[in-house]
Structure formats: C-alpha cells, structure tokens
C-alpha cells in the first residue's frame, strides 16, 4: 500500500497540494481523477520522487520513501511520464530491455531475456519487436513504453495520463490489458485519467482530487454519481449504471 500522510506542496509560491491524506490500496487499478490543476500529476511525481517532498510523509509498504535508495526504489516502483519523446532509434525489444536496468545494469542475463520475451507476448509486441519506435503508431508506442515499465517487475506502476493521445481502440486495449495483467500478477497500478468513464469502467478504486485535496476515495460504484460530478467537476451530467458500472452521459 502507498500511504500519503499530510503531504503539502508548493510550486513557485502556489499551493498545489494541501494536506493530502490518502491510502492507495494494494492490488488492482486505482484511477486518480479530477479537474485541471487539481494536483494529480504533482502527487504522482512526489510518490515517484521526481519532486522533492516538502511537507509530509510518504510510505510504500510501510517503509518511508525518503529512506529507500534509488536503486531499491526502481525495483519497487515505476513511473511513465505524460510526454514520451523518443530521440533515439531504439527498437521495441531494446526499449523493453531498458526496463530490466534496475536488475541488469545494462548487461542482460538469461533471466532478463526471459522476462523481456514474456512481456513482449503479454503486450502483443512480438510482431514489431525489431521495429524502431519512431516508425510505430501512437498506440503502439505507448504500448511499448508500458511494456518497458512492466518489464521492470515492480509492485507499483504509476502512469500519468497514458490515454492522452490514443484513439478509442488503443485506449480500450491498454486499459483492459493493464487491468487483467494487474490482477494476474498481483501488481498495483495508479493511473491519472482525464476521462471519468475510463476510470469508472476499468478502475477498482477511484481517488478524486480537487484544488489540491482528496475529495473522494472508493470503488467506482460508490464514488461516481451525479452529486460527485457536480462537486468535483462542476458539471450537471447524468449517471446511469451499465454492466454493474457507473456510466456518465457526456
């Protein structure tokens, strides 16, 4: 479990996070939702130690985040940023291989190769494994990077708005793949999502933030309703239930 305890954060004099108290449950998919500027990406960056913690405490599996070494952290937690620029001509297979760096330090052993092969299969990338990243479609590229993060074999995987540039087919495919893999391999995935319907449709747990605070936390069926949408997103949208899940009429 990731425990966030009384975390506040300021950027350039602006308060981005205000005394955030949050427990992210172990296992399954947790979606982090909220309007623009709510502080979702900042929170994720703090957990991944991309930003230095100013106030508060973050614990992963009971351990204080500050006390974990960078190397150990890389085996425990992986993050994929919003913008993924590929300046190199790297093949898909090589990229996934980078995910093994915390273990192999660049020298891939038989165990590493096994994991790479498995991950390529799980993410259906065998056909394109020799192709360079810049020759792939946006969806394939996102899949490749996600596969790389998956090959890192971490208990926790953080994704910052991975669906931003994906079409409906790629989005659905990525979300369902993440959900099933998370369940199969008992991993915890935290995703920042813009579209509330993807969150409601796939997440096991939803955390809603607004103006730097956590305003709701729980399974989608409990959290997503009309008053929730009004309070968090300031919009009057109808919510119905479809296939046991809440569905927002956009």
């Amino acid at each position, binding site marked *: 479990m990731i425990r966030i305890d009384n975390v506040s954060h300021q950027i350039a004099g602006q308060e981005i996070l205000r005394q955030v108290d949050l427990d992210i449950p172990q296992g399954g998919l947790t979606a982090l939702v909220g309007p623009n500027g709510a502080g979702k990406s900042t929170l994720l960056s703090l957990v991944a130690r991309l930003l230095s913690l100013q106030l508060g405490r973050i614990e992963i599996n009971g351990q204080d985040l500050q006390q974990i070494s960078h190397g*150990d952290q*890389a085996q425990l937690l992986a*993050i*994929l*940023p919003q913008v993924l620029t590929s*300046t190199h*001509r790297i093949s898909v297979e090589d990229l996934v291989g*980078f995910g093994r*760096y*915390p273990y192999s330090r660049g020298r891939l052993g038989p165990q590493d190769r096994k994991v790479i092969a498995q991950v390529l299969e799980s993410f259906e990338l065998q056909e394109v494994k020799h192709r360079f990243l810049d020759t792939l479609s946006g969806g394939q590229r996102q899949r490749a990077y996600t596969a790389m993060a998956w090959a890192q074999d971490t208990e926790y995987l953080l994704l910052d708005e991975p669906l931003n540039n994906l079409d409906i087919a790629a989005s659905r495919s990525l979300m369902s793949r993440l959900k099933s893999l998370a369940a199969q391999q008992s991993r915890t995935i935290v995703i920042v999502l813009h579209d509330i319907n993807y969150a409601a449709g796939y997440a096991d747990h939803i955390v809603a933030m607004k103006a730097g605070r956590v305003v709701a936390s729980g399974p989608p069926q409990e959290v997503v309703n009309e008053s929730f949408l009004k309070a968090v997103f300031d919009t009057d949208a109808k919510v119905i239930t479809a296939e046991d899940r809440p569905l927002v009429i956009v």
Partner: protein
Amino acid sequence: MLRLRFLWLILALVVVSVLFLTLGAKGSWGFTLWFRGQKLASLLLIGGAVSTATILFQTITHNRILTPSIMGFDALFLLILTLMIFGMGAGGYAQVPKVTLFLINLVLLTLASVALFTLLLKDQSSDLMRMVLTGIILGVLFRSLGLLIQRLIDPSEFAVLQSASFARFNKVDADLLLASAILVGLTWGAVWRMRHRLDVLALGEVLPVSLGADPRRGQLLVLMLISVLVSVSTALVGPVAFLGLLVSSLTYRLIPSWHHGHILPAAILIGGITLVGGQLLLERILHFETPLAVVVECLGGLVFLILILRKGST
C-alpha cells in the same frame, strides 16, 4: 555490419597516423619520429577528448546540436586562467610549475562549469534556443572578460598568456602532454564504466529516475568528466569550438546505435582521424598556412547551421 565499420575506422586511423609520421620527412628518422610522434599523440588525445566530451554533453542535454564549447566552456577555462594570473601577478605565475597550474585551473573550471550548467540545465525543458544562445553569449562574455583582464593586468606584458581566438593544433605544450594523457585515460575509464548508465540517462528526464539511474547525480558526474576533457584540450591547444559537433554528427551517421559502448569508441576514432587526417591534408599535402582549427571552425559552423535549419523546419 557495425563490426565492419569499426574495422574501417581503425584502418583509416592507422593509415593517417602512419602517413602523418612518415610523409615528407627530411633529416634523421629518429628525431622526426620522436617529434612527430609527440604531435600525433597530442592530436589523437585532443581529438578523442573533445569528441567524448561532446557526445557526453549531448547525452545529458538530450540534444545533438549542442557542444560544451558552444556553451562557452573553453572560454571559461581561459578566463579562469587569466584570473589566476591576475591573482598571482605575472611574476608569481611564472614561478609555479606548469602542471600544478594546470591542475588548479582544472579544479576551478570543474567547479565553475558544474555551477554554470546546473543553472542552465535546470531551465532546460522550457527553451532550448535560449539556452544555446545564452551559451554563445557567455562564450563571448568570457572571452571579452579574459581579454579585458589581460590588458588590465599589464598592458605591455600580455604575452604571458597566449589566448589565440583559434586553437593551434600545431603548437602543443609538451610539458602538459603526459599529465593530460593520464587524466584523459582515467576519464575514459570512468566513462566506459558508466556506459550503460549513459544509455539510460539518454532516455529523458523521468525514465532514468524510474529506472533507478539517478539522473541528478549522473548529470553531475558527467559534467565533471566533461570539464576534465575540455580543460585538457583547451590547455593543450586553445579553444576548439565546433570540432566536437563535426565529429559527433559524423559518428551518429556512421554508427546508428543508441549504445554508448558503440558510439563513444567510434567518436574517439573519428575524432582522431579528423584531426590527424585534417592536419595531414592541410599541412603536408596542400601546404596551406592556415591552422586546421580555422577550417574546422568553418566546417563545423556550417554543420551547426544545417542542423539548426533542419530542426527549425520540422
């Protein structure tokens, strides 16, 4: 395919080196070989050092148009040297052994450049052009400041410091050659050891954190290594503005790999070939008076413009 290219590179280097040593030699072989051998060694050293520094710099800035010298690194070295003379007085300066001076200067440059670049690189994501422009302006500032202080020290004695605006590959300071070779060798060793980490650092700002490669510490370490390499080459021959860019652009074309274990050795070879071959061509074959550095500056500047224009139009 890569292996073949490496073989060609090694062959080319051997050929130009042998020609450099033997072509147009007059007088006793013993003397010629010793004299030219020193020159050859220094050219190879500088060529390798500058190209390594450039590749490293491009890796941590995630950009293939930048070089340490475009950011004023070598001008900073000369400025520090000038300030040291200013501080010690021309007389005191002459008393300290050259190698000691060089090492002090090296340490100061490392500190200054790490500070400078941490400042500049922090702003990296916002505006690359502004960073490069700042670097060029800083280069002019340091150069002017150096000249100004020279004149202030003692207007009639500024021969103490020969800061040519162009490097002199022909006149290498032999005293420093041994110390330089050791330093560069150690640096190359350190760089080789971290070659896998460099691959990860090249992936961006976030992914190296995720993969546990600690980019902040990594960048710092690399900057220090770059400082050593640039200091050595500037101390030996003066400012080498666009050589690194020329070599790195060639390297990326010839060796289409992302692995630093391939790119770095190739760059060192190409750097050596460029300098030795260039000097050979200019001095022995064409018998031009112009120093090699001028030609390199011209060509490298053209390469820079082409890269910028191409990048600008995307």
